[in-house]
């Protein structure tokens, strides 16, 4: 075909495209229903099918059978889920005026400017090579047609750019992108014309491919059966189409998974699927229409690949060009040209949308934050919208020139597919922060940054880096021995993982470590207020969907004038006025009467600016005019009403729990006291019964003796009878003591007090024990520093105290060299009697309880309890009735030393 014809038809095609876009853009304002159609939406999503699909699928199929399929399988499998996931993303983006994937991630994670920049960098690195291979596809198909010699490929690489047709195509595409992608600054970034053109191209490329397919199957062969029959006879071809083909299961898995992500996360896909979506209901139609489209466009891939292998392989023709070379070989130049135009349309739609999407990201997330501060300060500068569009346009040109240069200098050696996959995996790194961002509120900024950086670095190291080595930029030693000779750092087998193919290896490491970092860091780092607010807004978008009031954790103040100024500067005076009027009527407010902007207006302004400038930039602008208040308690309470209820409930539960715990503790301690008391009672009873048994034993034995020996001598008889009497008295005494205890316990019975000569009382008691003292050979001393001491008290009771103390001292005093000493003195109108004995000391653990009821000094060395366990308790009780006290005091020479205090009465 003649050069002139080819160039003019190409130009006509482009003009047609311009026409469609222009027509729709003009009509757009008046009649929206047509562009709103779900079919247009679904067709625009087919921008996914690029030159890679058009030429590359056949190329890949020719060498690996069904190996091209995972790229389409991924989106097809995921399509039913779009209704949920994609819908949610769309709703969030509409609410937040998000206009790119970078903005989405930045906005979700606290409107982080850094994350936005990071996402842009990843996108640029991922997408530029991808655009460049589209340019390559365009130029090689044009060259092929003009030279009609299939063997003359890649010649354009050596042409100076001004002779290279691809360069001019690039310029035209830039022009198109600028015309239809940056006509005006729309906060929603809707480009109806652009989308119409893309949809048109989707139809065109599908028809072109189907035409080639039909020609190959029915023109070159006698239908499918003939084609396959011939293929089976060629063993090398038949081999390809066993299911395993050239790929194993892991490769299938990773390719499918990454394609699932790429379909929504590639900047151009995000742009058409989310940003250009003006009706979330369209997603439903797209979820079956897009898979259908993918099925149709892949229908003839295998037949064409087989036919190419059968007819062209031996001539050394690159399989990527079979779609063109098969018709050419059959002399069908017209059809070949149609095929070329189909590929051209696939490439151009991708280039245009990708460029527009990238330029939005670059200008909003990368360049704007840098210029905003300067712009705000400089009042003399004119309105910004024009300048913003200027930035956008420059970005488009830069992206395309970069792509062109890449294609010129680097992209030659690589097939469509391999560069496409590198791009896919780059944007698949967005999947963890996006998915977590949609469903996991705890995912935070630091986690997203960490995950993205790690994923991006591993991606760079495992996929593009080896291509740089191949290009001779680095030593091949790195491939063999790892960086710095460390085996774990080999780009194609990180940490020794070497049984995966290069792509699966890269996907496995980058995605899994990205995810792990995101989760790990999010769990262990803190989240700020903006992040919490945004996280809730994203994860629980349905909660906010109906809500008119913008929910804000952060309270800001700004003057109306500042708001007006900012809106006018960044959106233009006219647009600002329209927006403010809209706001006034919507909220039923008269802004001219207000001085400070209501918080909804600030949020409204930020949302409007976000559409035009991106979340991070608009946050920056608002920060410069609005004072941020620490959130007040009331506002916090209102904002967190729901959370509050839950909190209160859980706090109430916690309180209940604590009360229960306390109650249990009290019960346990009460129970323990009861058990101790019970134990004491048991011991007491056992003691009392033992004490009763002893005299009864004697009484019984002697009564029997007396009864059975009537002829005993009188003195013996008397002796035995005396025993009966004294043992009976002993029983009576014991019973009295128990009764005393009862009496004392009944307490507060009126005691009659009288003046008592205490020294006389002491001496009297000592006399009653003198017999026992001498029998036991005890050394008794009474020391007194005073001659006379009168106290008020009950004589019987005080006698009981002294008797108890005496019994005690006699029991415990050393059996061989017993000593008892009483010392009397007066200190500060208080009588002090110290009652001491040597011998066995009271064990330390008993000292605290010695004055308690039922406590007895009882240890194995002592053999049996010495008494009822009531003596000292009774002493204490009586002394307390006399406003006195009894205590144990320590003395190095004495085993036991009681200090008795009683108020003295002065004569």
């Amino acid at each position, binding site marked *: 075909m003649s050069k002139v014809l080819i160039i003019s038809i190409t130009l006509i095609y482009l003009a047609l495209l311009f026409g469609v876009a222009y027509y729709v853009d003009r009509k757009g304002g008046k009649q929206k229903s047509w562009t709103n159609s779900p079919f247009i939406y679904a067709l625009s999503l087919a921008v996914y099918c690029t030159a890679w699909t058009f030429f590359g699928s056949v190329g890949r199929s020719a060498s690996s059978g069904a190996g091209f399929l995972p790229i389409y399988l991924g989106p097809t499998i995921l399509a039913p889920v779009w209704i949920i996931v994609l819908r949610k993303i769309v709703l969030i983006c509409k609410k937040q005026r998000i206009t790119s994937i970078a903005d989405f991630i930045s906005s979700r994670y606290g409107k982080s400017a850094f994350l936005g920049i990071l996402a842009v960098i990843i996108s640029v690195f991922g997408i530029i090579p991808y655009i460049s291979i589209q340019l390559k596809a365009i130029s090689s198909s044009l060259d092929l047609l003009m030279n009609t010699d299939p063997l003359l490929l890649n010649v354009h690489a050596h042409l100076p750019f001004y002779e290279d047709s691809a360069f001019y195509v690039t310029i035209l595409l830039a022009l198109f992108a600028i015309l239809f992608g940056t006509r005006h600054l729309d906060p929603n970034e809707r480009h109806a014309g652009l989308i119409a053109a893309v949809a048109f191209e989707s139809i065109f490329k599908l028809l072109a491919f189907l035409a080639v397919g039909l020609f190959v199957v029915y023109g070159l062969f006698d239908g499918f059966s003939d084609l396959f029959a011939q293929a089976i006879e060629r063993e090398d071809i038949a081999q390809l189409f066993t299911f395993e083909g050239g790929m194993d299961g892991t490769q299938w898995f990773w390719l499918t998974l990454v394609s699932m992500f790429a379909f929504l996360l590639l900047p151009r896909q995000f742009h058409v699927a989310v940003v250009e979506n003006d009706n979330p209901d369209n997603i439903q139609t797209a979820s079956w229409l897009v898979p259908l489209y993918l099925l149709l466009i892949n229908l003839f891939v295998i037949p064409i690949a087989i036919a190419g292998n059968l007819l062209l392989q031996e001539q050394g023709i690159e399989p990527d060009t079979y779609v063109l070379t098969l018709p050419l070989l059959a002399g069908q130049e017209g059809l070949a040209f149609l095929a070329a135009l189909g590929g051209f349309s696939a490439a151009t739609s991708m280039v245009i949308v990708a460029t527009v999407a990238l330029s939005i990201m670059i200008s909003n997330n990368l360049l704007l934050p840098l210029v905003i501060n300067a712009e705000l300060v400089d009042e003399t500068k004119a309105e910004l919208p024009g300048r913003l569009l200027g930035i956008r346009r420059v970005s488009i040109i830069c992206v395309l020139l970069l792509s062109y240069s890449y294609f010129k200098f680097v992209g030659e050696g690589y097939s469509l597919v391999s560069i496409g996959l590198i791009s896919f995996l780059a944007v698949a790194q967005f999947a963890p922060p996006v998915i977590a961002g949609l469903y996991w509120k705890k995912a935070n900024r630091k986690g997203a940054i960490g995950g993205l950086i790690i994923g991006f670095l591993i991606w760079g190291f495992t996929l593009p880096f080896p291509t740089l080595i191949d290009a001779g930029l680095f030593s091949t030693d790195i491939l063999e021995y790892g960086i710095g000779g460390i085996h774990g750092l080999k780009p194609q087998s990180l940490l020794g993982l070497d049984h995966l193919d290069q792509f699966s290896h890269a996907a496995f490491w980058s995605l899994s470590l990205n995810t792990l970092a995101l989760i790990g860091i999010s769990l262990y780092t803190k989240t700020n207020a903006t992040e919490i607010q945004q996280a809730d807004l994203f994860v629980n978008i349905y909660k906010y969907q109906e809500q008119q009031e913008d929910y804000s954790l952060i309270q800001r103040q700004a003057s109306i004038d500042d708001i007006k100024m900012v809106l006018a500067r960044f959106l233009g005076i006219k647009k600002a006025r329209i927006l403010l009027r809209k706001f006034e009527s919507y909220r039923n407010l008269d802004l001219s009467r207000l001085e400070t902007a209501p918080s909804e207006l600030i949020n409204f302004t930020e949302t409007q600016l976000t559409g035009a400038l991106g979340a991070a930039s608009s946050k920056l602008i608002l920060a410069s005019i609005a004072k941020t208040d620490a959130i007040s308690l009331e506002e916090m309470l209102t904002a967190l009403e729901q959370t509050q209820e839950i909190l209160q409930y859980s706090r109430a539960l916690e309180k209940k729990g604590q009360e229960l715990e306390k109650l249990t503790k009290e019960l346990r301690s009460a129970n323990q006291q009861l058990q101790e008391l019970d134990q004491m009672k048991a011991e007491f009873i056992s003691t009392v019964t033992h004490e009763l048994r002893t005299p009864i034993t004697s009484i019984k*034995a002697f009564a*029997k003796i007396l009864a059975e020996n009537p002829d005993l001598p009188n003195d013996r008889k008397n002796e035995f009878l005396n025993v009966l009497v004294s043992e009976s008295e002993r029983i009576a005494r014991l019973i009295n003591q128990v009764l005393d205890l009862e009496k004392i316990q009944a307490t507060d019975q009126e005691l009659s007090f009288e003046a008592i000569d205490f020294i006389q009382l002491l001496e009297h008691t000592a006399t009653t024990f003198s017999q026992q003292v001498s029998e036991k050979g005890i050394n008794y001393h009474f020391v007194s520093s005073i001659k006379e001491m009168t106290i008020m008290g009950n004589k019987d009771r005080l006698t009981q105290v002294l008797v108890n103390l005496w019994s005690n001292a006699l029991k415990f005093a050393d059996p061989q060299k017993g000593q008892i000493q009483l010392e009397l003195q007066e200190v500060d109108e208080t009588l002090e009697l110290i009652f001491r004995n040597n011998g066995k000391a009271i064990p330390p653990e008993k000292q605290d309880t010695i004055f308690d009821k039922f406590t007895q000094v009882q240890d194995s060395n002592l*053999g049996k309890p010495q008494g009822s366990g009531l003596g000292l308790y009774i002493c204490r009780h009586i002394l307390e009735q006399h406003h006195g006290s009894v205590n144990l005091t320590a003395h190095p020479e004495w085993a036991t030393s009681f200090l008795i205090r009683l108020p003295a009465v002065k004569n």
Partner: protein
Amino acid sequence: MKRNGTILLVDDEPNILLALEFLIQQKGFNVVKASDGSKGIQQARKHQPDIVILDVMMPGLDGFSVAKAIRNDENLTDTTIIFLTAKGTSQDRHQGYSSGGEIYLTKPFDNQELVDIISEVFEFG
């Protein structure tokens, strides 16, 4: 088995010692008395009695310890130990038998029963 017809009484209650002494002397045996555990061991070693009648709860060494001491003494292997105590639970009895006592009686005791037991010990060993 050599018999010297001596019975050692160990109890801290003088009146009980008195009653036991009378009952045993009436049957014609020799009586040795001790008012606490350690004295009881001394007397046992000194007199090598055929029978020891032991109280349990006494100041100083208790009856169980005395029984063990006697059981561990080579010269006292033939001595029969009879516990006579107010402690009457099965636990106490178990402790009594395991510390070396042959017979365990509780207070208040029956005069005739005690005398019969003593006679049996001398008759059948």
